[in-house]
């Protein structure tokens, strides 16, 4: 395969990176209508709270006011969320995704943990849900680092966070970003941040003396309208409420619907020029999960070129799963199960515009990251010309059959069964002995067991 690919269907790659929401929280409930999506249904999963009470996943997330305290997403917080126990310097073997509720109660106080288990019904997020239904929904896109915003965004800009897990603005590093690498290849890349008052997350300092790499969201809209987008555009939402504008980044506790509208603004801007639309691929992705529950176990990966000493971490495990949707007139509705992380972004940019990422990318994680240009399902002479109806909820746009109760239960589901049985043995051993957790093998049996156990746990002792 010759590199760069220079696929004519993607002269412009646009990435919109939102803030701090997990896959299950935002679009996990799409599983109900898109059965192939590795999502969730209400009650599918529980996490124990600080006093040992199971807190179940629900479908009642609200746009704002859900998080009186910001859910923790520092490395230590995410470790607790993924493994269920505090980090003690040694990594546990396999994440259990069981500490989200406890972690949030460490931020907000006792009995507040249920907030991180509340998920959005798809109709609450009309733009995101519609794009997910109509184009490619990636249900295995993980944040690059089990940690906060800046190291995760660094993976999108550099393919690594240089061993950093914290939030300090790292302006001493003069490492080439994807924007400089594009320029050397004779292409143009640009960061469009929302406004002067919102600014850019970390990149002002990293891109020393290269103001031409920057634009505001108004510049992006103008470039779309005039079909003058650069090869690569990275869009940053508004990170704070400012004067008469609301934050659009969806970071807890910002207004999520305003963020959904911002996604639509980006989509509409690209659609505003038909020629531009036919040559543009849009990726909408979140930087990290922000402390909100997700059930998928982040996979282990080979270590990065850099490691952290405080805390010790070799960057050999991805962070929690985030929502990701890829939009193009050459992509038909599909569910994509390949594993991606944020290093997939510069890897794909490299593959399309610079050269073979295995040799042209500068850092190991980017060299090994999956790219996503293979998601095209249409030839260049057969683009989609339809426009999604964001105002109406569509269902049944996938042809695959829904799973049946006879499908085997996931390992996580079985873990949950064992966890509930252990809890019941402590609080009601007589009843627990009447159950048969070892006989649970299918989704339906697991759901039945969990439902029975939860009723027993919550019933009135009298």
């Amino acid at each position, binding site marked *: 395969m010759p590199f760069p690919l220079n696929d004519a269907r993607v002269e412009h790659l646009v990435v919109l990176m939102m803030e701090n929401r997990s896959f299950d929280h935002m679009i996990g409930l799409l599983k109900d209508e898109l059965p192939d999506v590795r999502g969730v249904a209400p009650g599918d999963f529980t996490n124990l709270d600080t006093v040992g009470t199971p807190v179940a996943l629900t479908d009642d997330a609200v746009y704002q006011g859900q998080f009186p305290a910001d859910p923790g997403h520092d490395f230590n917080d995410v470790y607790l969320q993924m493994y269920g126990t505090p980090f003690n310097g040694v990594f546990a073997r396999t994440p259990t995704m069981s500490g989200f509720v406890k972690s949030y109660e460490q931020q907000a*106080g006792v009995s507040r943990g249920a907030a991180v288990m509340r998920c959005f019904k798809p109709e609450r997020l009309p733009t995101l849900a519609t794009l997910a239904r109509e184009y490619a929904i990636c249900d295995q896109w993980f944040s690059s680092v089990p940690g906060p915003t800046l190291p995760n965004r660094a993976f999108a800009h550099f393919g690594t966070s240089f061993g950093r897990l914290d939030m300090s603005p790292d302006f001493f590093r003069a490492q080439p970003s994807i924007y400089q690498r594009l320029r050397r290849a004779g292409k143009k890349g640009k960061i469009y941040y929302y406004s002067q008052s919102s600014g850019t997350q970390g990149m002002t300092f990293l891109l020393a003396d290269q103001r031409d790499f920057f634009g505001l969201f108004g510049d992006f809209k103008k470039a779309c309208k005039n079909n003058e987008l650069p090869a690569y555009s990275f869009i940053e939402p508004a990170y704070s409420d400012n004067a008469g504008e609301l934050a659009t980044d969806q970071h807890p506790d910002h207004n999520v619907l305003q963020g959904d509208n911002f996604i639509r603004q980006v989509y509409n801007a690209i659609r505003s020029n038909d020629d531009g639309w036919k040559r543009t691929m849009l990726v909408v992705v979140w930087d990290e999960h922000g402390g909100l529950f997700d059930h998928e176990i982040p996979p282990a990966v080979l270590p990065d070129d850099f490691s952290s000493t405080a805390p010790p971490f070799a960057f050999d495990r991805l962070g929690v799963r985030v929502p990701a949707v890829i939009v193009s007139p050459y992509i038909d509705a599909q569910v994509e199960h390949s594993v991606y992380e944020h290093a997939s972004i510069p890897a794909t940019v490299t593959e399309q515009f610079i050269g073979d990422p295995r040799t042209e990318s500068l850092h190991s994680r980017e060299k090994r990251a999956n790219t996503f240009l293979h998601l095209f399902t249409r030839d260049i002479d057969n683009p989609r010309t339809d426009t999604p109806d964001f105002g109406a909820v569509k269902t049944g746009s996938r042809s695959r059959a829904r799973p049946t109760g006879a499908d085997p239960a996931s390992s996580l589901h079985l873990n949950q069964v064992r966890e509930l049985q252990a809890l019941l043995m402590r609080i009601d051993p007589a009843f627990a002995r009447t159950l048969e957790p070892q006989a649970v093998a299918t989704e339906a049996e697991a759901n039945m067991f969990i439902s029975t156990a939860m009723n027993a746990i919550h019933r009135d002792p009298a």
Partner: protein
Amino acid sequence: MTAGRLMAALVLSAACAAPALAQTSDAVACETAVNRRKAAWASSAHSWLETMVELQTRELELSRCRMRASTGAEKLHHGEDFGRVLLTGEGIHPVVGTIAAGNGLAGGAALTHEWASETGPRFRADADARLSVNRSWVTGARLNIVGSSASLSNSHIHAIADASYTHIAELSYFGPGLGAAADETRFGLNLALGRFSLIVPAGGGFEVFGQVEGLRAAPLASPDSGVPSIEARFSDVSAPALGQATTYAVLGGGAGWRYPADAVLTGYSTTAHAAVRRYQETAGHPYSFTRSDVTWDNQYTPETTVDAGTLSARVHLSASAAGSTNRVPFYLMPTLGGADVNGESSLRSYRDYRFRAPHALSGQFEYAHTVYDPIGMFVFYDVGTVADQFGDLGRSLKHSVGAGLTFRLGGAIFGQIYYAWGGAEGSRFNFSGNSNPIDIDKAARSAF
């Protein structure tokens, strides 16, 4: 109790400046202690203030852990992280800046808190208190309320309620008009302000606003600083309302316009604001007046591969109509020269507050270029005039030229240092900057 814990964390963190062994085990033990503290915290309910202080303290402790366990550049990075937690985001933060030009550096503390209910508007509250080296001080609070109904255009009704009390130890007065001699006198000023502003987007880049305000201003004799107090050279004739406190009910309104409607970094953009405010003196003193302000900002940044810099031009007109039986108090007149009481600069080679009159017209023309981000350079040309009568504006102009450096944070300028010259009063070297979160929107700003 909570403030004490925060202070303890600050002291603890400051102790980290001492050299420490770079031991991973130290870091793990230190972070484990933070984790234990977090687990204990989760066992009970807490107020928002307790939560805010706890989260901030915890973050500071984590930064301390990581600083202790690292060496060299890594320690520096964790020091930056410490600074970020200390100075930004929700919580209680130290602030450094100025209160009014000529009153030295001020420091203090600020509290920032944001909240929203599930269905109501969004709120952000800022409160701060600062004390300067010459004992000027200010304390105030601002509440921002933004409508929460999401819109595709992201334009929302915006309300601001703010109140402040300011004691300014020293302000300069040279006399009225453009011909005032360069002999400086000084006075002090107490200001009490309560205000409510409502800003409504009107589409197409337009917005309108309305404002009600209560203002009390009281001039003070200047402390003995080696410069004559204002009473030594001026009387009520040449300094209207000298020695006279005034209390106002202010009613105002206006409009703003931005083109393009979405802010851009490259190409041409412009904003314009026009406002009229009636200052009605409520104690019967003859100092009621009507002020009109018009500001027009223009900016052009060519879109080139190599940074070509930015050209900007700003024009501001302030006109005060008092009628035949009233006058504008000297301490409420607009000023040109250096910086005004709001920190807005003009005629930068002249001393602060150098020219003062009921009417003022100023223009600023700048070329700015990044040197090494976040540091930039700029050169400028300032022009301006003041007059007792509106018709006299423009008959004579003062000029300044200069150059300086800017310091940006997250894309916005937070400080600048410059050298300016021009006119017949020599040259001037100055620094200005402010990390204070209370920054009243221009559209909502009135006399102060």
